[in-house]
């Protein structure tokens, strides 16, 4: 639920960036009188292309990080009612979730991993339903704490793959699992390309693939991994 409209947000932001109405109108090729009406919410929010132009002009005039620029653009599009396409909404949710983690000073590398691993439904709960979000480094988490979270139905997502939180993953287990393939006289299986899509999921394709096919399948494998919530 938005507690203020596009016009007010635009005016506040413009003033925060010490940008005059005339300068913004100039940068966006808009009539200053029209822009003033929009800010006072006497005219509806402009169409999408104009909102994008306003966002670009604001970003250009302020010293913002890429994440802050993205956040400003999405906020303007959202408040103007132009964030409606499903893909955009999903993208927006992921970005907002990423911003939330950045606000908690989580390093960018973990933010990337979190956006890949945390299911959209969980992001929605955190961002829209106000569900609490706790972040801890893996080596600070005890097994007792993990058990306690599970017992009350709290979702735990490890951002460190193949580490101590996963015990079924040792080299010996892997060796045992595949020892027969290297130590039998059975005919070999046909050549296959195999793509890791999680700790226990793979995409296997028989025959040779081109490098672009391999690249696409790697991306799909990554998508599967995020669906599996790993």
């Amino acid at each position, binding site marked *: 639920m938005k507690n203020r409209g596009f016009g007010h947000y635009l005016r506040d932001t413009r003033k925060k960036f010490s940008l005059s109405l005339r300068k913004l109108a100039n940068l966006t090729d808009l009539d200053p009188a029209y822009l003033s009406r929009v800010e006072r919410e006497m005219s509806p929010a402009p169409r999408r292309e104009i909102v994008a132009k306003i966002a670009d002009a604001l970003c*250009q005039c302020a010293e913002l*990080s*890429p994440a802050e*620029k*993205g956040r400003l653009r999405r906020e303007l599009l959202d408040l103007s009612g132009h964030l409606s396409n499903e893909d955009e909404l999903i*993208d927006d949710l*992921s*970005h907002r979730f990423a911003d939330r983690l950045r606000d908690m000073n989580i*390093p*960018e*590398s*973990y933010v*990337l991993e979190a*956006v*890949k691993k945390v299911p959209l439904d969980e992001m929605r709960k955190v961002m829209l339903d106000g569900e609490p979000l706790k972040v801890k480094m*893996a*080596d600070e988490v005890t097994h007792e704490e993990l058990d306690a979270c599970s017992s009350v139905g709290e979702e735990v997502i490890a951002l*460190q793959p*193949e*580490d101590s939180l996963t015990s079924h*993953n*040792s*080299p*010996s287990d*892997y*060796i045992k699992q*595949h*020892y027969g*393939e*290297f*130590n039998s006289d059975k005919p*070999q299986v046909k*050549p*296959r*390309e*195999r793509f*890791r899509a999680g700790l226990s999921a793979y995409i296997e394709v028989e025959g*040779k693939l*081109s490098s672009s096919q391999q*690249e696409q399948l*790697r*991306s799909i494998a*990554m998508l599967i991994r995020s669906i599996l919530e790993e």
Partner: protein
Amino acid sequence: MKKEKILKIETNWDNVLVPALRRCQRSLLIEVNAQSGTHEELDESSPINLALVIDRSGSMHGRRLEAAKTAALGISKRLGVLDRLSLVSFDHEVTRHFANLAMNPEGLEQAQTTLMDLHPRGSTNLGGGWFEGAACIAERIDRSDLNEGHVLLLSDGMANKGVTNPDLLRNHAEELALRGIQTSTIGIGENYSPLQLDALAQGGQGRLHDTETSNDIIDVVLGELGEIRKKAAQDVQLIVKIPEGVKLEILTEVPVSQIGDLLQISLGTVLEGRKRPIAILAEIPSYAGGEILPFEMSLTWRDVESGKKCCSDPLQSKLMVVPSAEVFEEDRDIGVVGQIADLWEATLAYRAMLFNERGNLEGASNLYQEILFKFSKLVSILPDSNFRIQRLERAQSKVARHWSGRSKREALAISKKQMLNELDLRKRDMGKWHDRL
């Protein structure tokens, strides 16, 4: 106290100025470097957990097997009492001679006696031998606080028994590398399979070495021990946040994935004191003057000592959009362009030779055809641009025909080393990969 390794990123653009209201191309050289932290003087090296896997098939008869044995003896003498050595040999059968032997005087004696008794026979179950070596390492990992180990495989032949498919070998090596077992391979002579050995080394986050003489074998095996000791970080990932509208093309051979504006580049293992280069071409769309295009980069890696995941502080690298009258083509940094061109050429050669080895001659030639225009544009400001383009065409013509023997194996291994900035451990001047064209 343990040695703390810190990974650093260095960036160099050919030109940080971008003309306003025009599309343009910029090249970027990123170098990842591992440095010791402040506690180096108090360091005690982690014990080494090494498995030597030696081909004893019929073709190894004579000086090759003798050189491999000499090198193995040399390794056993250089390991400390806390280090562990395993020895596996293979022909059509796989033999585990000893596993995780402590290199104390008794262990050393046992290793020497066993090595002396190694004789050639039979065909080549390379995959089985390699996997047995990995099994030795895994057992030690289970029984100690070590969380990693290395398999070093020497072979002069092509696997013709057991698992032989390079893609399968690569997949298994990748899986084991993720679990702490790395693989490096040493090809001997003119008949080893670059596809099989490269697949194991690439998947195993290790190195592929080419050798010819007995001295090469000894130098490379002992040199590889030094490389293992220099390992600073594993599972290294470079994350680049790209400004809106900019497209990056990674010119060096590395696994890359992109989600939205974040590009993730997997670099595998980084050695201390050895810069790992990544060559990139950036396609910049039209921007208004005054814009600043920030590229934010950070690294994650797994610490070799503790196995813990680490990450670097983000580094900002910026391009500035200025009026086009202020941007001159000749202002591009020739040094950076030259390095990018060298890396790109080496990568193309490596890829094309693998295509050639698989018998896909048309695919090998097409790799060059697809980039010829772009490459010419990149090198246009270099004084030797014509020479470079002619060399590229010569390489294209070479890989479009059947090519075998020593020259291809040497060229493939040397081009890969140039691409990754790895040392050639042979103690003689091997020249450049393109000397073999």
